């Protein structure tokens, strides 16, 4: 029996071992078919991975199962019962729980209050008034977290805990509701390698405890590591259901993208030249006047990719902002090609030769409501030939320039240079920024999280662009939370923790594990 016929089979479930059966599900949104005639069966007690690119329809499909959306066509069966009414409450009653990609937690409540939200233990006051029994709640949560080895302090506020603990809280929320079908939506996107290992261990233990786990992901290694079977979505259609043990990651990747992908980068040896950027004792203060970058020094040479690895929020974006001039430098000095730029304004730095691909592309990289041609000229519009000496903008020059970049960098949009950037997909928005910045031909390029939220195909594309610039002899600063990316691209790696570069070494002298330990701050250079 081949995979697709199994996926579309419509066998009844006499033994009752199916946790979920989706039958011919179709869900449309204005302009797109998010789920196109999907039939899928998930067995009780298995770890089932749902694999697909961004926008392939994974989250939508799971949101249907979780009751957030109602499909236009098709049936959802949970443990042999057909869902007639779609709401999170109903799904929860059937035992479906979901850890959302963006956590749904109340910041100023305690861990315990968040876990029991909507199902608070109640005691009667004066015989009638229902009051929440906080003492019993805290006890209950303490027990629950011991039982599942997810230790948390029920009295801590959400605003005081880190992402890994927040994720534990989300898992406990499902367990408190006695969910036995657990959906994880991209759970590892924000975790360090150690935390990922721990989470995967938890997921395995949940299966041992008899739970059914559905894992939404586009990270193939993780799926390989924990999942029993995986379903692969491509553009809203289920293209295959595979036994993970008998499928290579390469095969999964090509099914997911719809073509061959090579994510092993072909990196020629570095040919480093003169020093492009020199940073000495850089200190940056945040809005509350607290130091977030504490005396950081490093150098980047031409033809070198220098990567800063670290857990989010340890000062890496602030370094990038200080180098581009978006944030003020409190003390220390910055030299670009031996010229000091510590106090130089943003536009002057751009003109002197800094290109910047910011982390928050939509706020700092683009003007979403302008069209593509304006966005592509955003760093040059005030110069010839875009602007006449009298200050009149020449529309035709914008269009000509846009046409050229669209052609070279393969930026896909509905109406070429005239399309409003907001209407472009995330991957193409990123292509537009990269095109603009590379075309500046700056000696220094700063990439912050360049592949965040992109799918495998777009990642491949971005990586090869970065390597091409390295070949061109640019100095490249790469700030990334993805260890894979840092390991794949960097020549030199600095690990940042709590605003300090704990170590700087050639990439080949680092193991992934070692970087992870520096990232957590558990290891320091003597």
């Amino acid at each position, binding site marked *: 029996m081949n995979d697709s016929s199994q996926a579309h089979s419509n066998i009844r479930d006499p033994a009752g071992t199916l946790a979920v059966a989706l039958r011919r599900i179709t869900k449309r949104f204005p302009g797109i078919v998010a789920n196109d005639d999907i039939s899928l069966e998930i067995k009780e007690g298995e770890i089932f991975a749902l694999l697909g690119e961004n926008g392939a329809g994974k989250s939508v499909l799971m949101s249907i199962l979780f009751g957030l959306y109602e499909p236009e066509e098709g049936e959802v069966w949970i443990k042999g019962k057909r869902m007639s009414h779609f709401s999170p409450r109903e799904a929860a009653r059937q035992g479906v729980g979901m850890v959302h990609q963006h956590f749904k937690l*109340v910041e100023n409540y305690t861990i315990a209050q968040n876990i029991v939200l909507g199902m608070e233990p109640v005691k009667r006051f004066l015989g009638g*008034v229902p*009051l929440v029994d906080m003492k019993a709640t805290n006890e209950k949560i303490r027990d629950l977290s011991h039982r599942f080895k997810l230790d948390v302090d029920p009295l801590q506020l959400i605003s005081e805990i880190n992402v890994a603990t927040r994720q534990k809280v989300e898992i406990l929320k499902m367990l408190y509701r006695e969910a036995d079908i657990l959906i994880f939506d991209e759970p590892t996107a924000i975790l360090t390698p150690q935390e990922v290992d721990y989470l995967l261990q938890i997921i395995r233990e949940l299966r041992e405890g008899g739970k059914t786990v559905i894992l939404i992901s586009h990270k193939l290694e993780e799926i390989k590591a924990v999942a029993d079977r995986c379903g692969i979505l491509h553009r809203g259609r289920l293209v295959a259901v595979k036994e993970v043990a008998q499928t290579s990651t390469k095969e999964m990747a090509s099914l997911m993208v719809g073509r061959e992908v090579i994510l092993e980068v072909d990196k020629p040896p570095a040919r480093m030249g003169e020093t492009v950027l020199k940073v000495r004792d850089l200190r940056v203060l945040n809005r509350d006047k607290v130091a977030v970058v504490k005396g950081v020094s490093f150098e980047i040479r031409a033809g070198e990719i220098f990567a800063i690895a670290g857990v989010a929020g340890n000062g890496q974006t602030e370094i990038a902002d200080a180098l581009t001039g978006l944030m003020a430098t409190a003390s220390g000095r910055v030299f670009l090609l031996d010229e000091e730029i510590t106090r130089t304004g943003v536009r002057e730095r751009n003109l002197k030769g800094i290109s910047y691909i910011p982390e928050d592309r939509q706020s700092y990289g683009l003007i979403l409501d302008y069209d593509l041609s304006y966005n592509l000229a955003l760093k040059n519009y005030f110069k010839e030939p875009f602007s006449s000496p009298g200050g009149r903008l020449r529309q035709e020059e914008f269009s000509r320039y846009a046409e050229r970049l669209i052609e070279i960098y393969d930026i896909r949009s509905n109406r070429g240079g005239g399309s409003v950037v907001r209407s472009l997909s995330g991957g193409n928005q990123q292509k537009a920024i990269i095109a603009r910045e590379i075309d500046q031909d700056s000696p220094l390029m700063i990439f912050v999280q360049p592949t965040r939220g992109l799918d495998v195909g777009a990642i491949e594309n971005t990586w090869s662009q970065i390597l091409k610039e390295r070949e061109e002899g640019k100095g490249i600063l790469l700030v990334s939370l993805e260890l894979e990316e840092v390991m794949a691209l960097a020549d030199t790696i600095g690990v940042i923790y709590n605003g300090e570069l704990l170590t700087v070494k050639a990439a080949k002298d680092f193991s992934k594990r070692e970087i992870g330990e520096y990232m957590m701050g558990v290891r320091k250079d003597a």
Partner: protein
Amino acid sequence: MIEIILYDGLAFALPLLIIAIGGIFSERSGIINLALEGLLGFGAFTGAFMVVMADHFLPGSQPYGIYIGMAFAMVGGGLFAMIHGLLTVYYRANQVISGVVINILSMSLTAFLTRQLNAIIFNAASNRFQLGVADRFTLPLLSEIPVLGAVFTKVYPFQVVILLVALLAYLVFEKTPFGIHLKASGDNPHAVEAAGVDVKRVRFAAVMISGALAGLGGISFAYSISANFNPMIYMGYGYLAIAALIFGNWQIGNTLLAVLFFGFARSAGYELAKALEMSSTFNDIIMTLPYMLTLLILIFFSKQNAAPRALGEIYDKGKR
């Protein structure tokens, strides 16, 4: 003199408190409520109308007038608040505009209705409903405590009712599942929805409660300030309540301190004017005192404010 400042201050502070608690209910659920002014006015109108009706058609009900008034003021305020609730929660209208429009609507509507109802039912050409006098009472023993005894002196009946309602509101707000869902809706409505609670229903209920509490405060002002209902009720006390709840950082306990401060500032101002033997024409300037103080305090308090995170955000279930 200090006693007068205390009991007059309390008589002003408590209605302000219950209005501010109303505002807290709405805003902690995530709905900006600038409509407090209009809600307290409409509540007072409804209550006062029922008082004169009872007086007219049920002779002998006069001693209970104030309780009838309070009960119906809450009903009227709550019903009128449904407009704000429907517009902002279910039709996703801009919360600031809705609030301001309701204030204007309430002012003109009650002025119109008061004249019409007076003409039709009582054959009188008047823009006011005459309320009976609310007898202030003094507790025998407690009132003899030096200084603090003033708290138990010349107490309006509505003050006792407000205290009880405020305690109940506090209990609901802090301890019941409803209160917990309400505060969570103002912080992260998506978390509440995912927990299987209907955010819109919670917010709608919160806005209605805020109208009922504002109505209770409104009728109390009508009794204590002029013993009748007239357009003078729209003096800006609704806005003062908003100021109080913001100084109180959207918390009931701190808001109590803020209203006491306003109350005592006001009564102390009057006493000051009396002591200086100023003519009553200076009353108007004295009445600006709480507002002047508001402006002053704003300078110091604005920085450390922690408004509910989702305040003013239009909630859309589909948004991710």
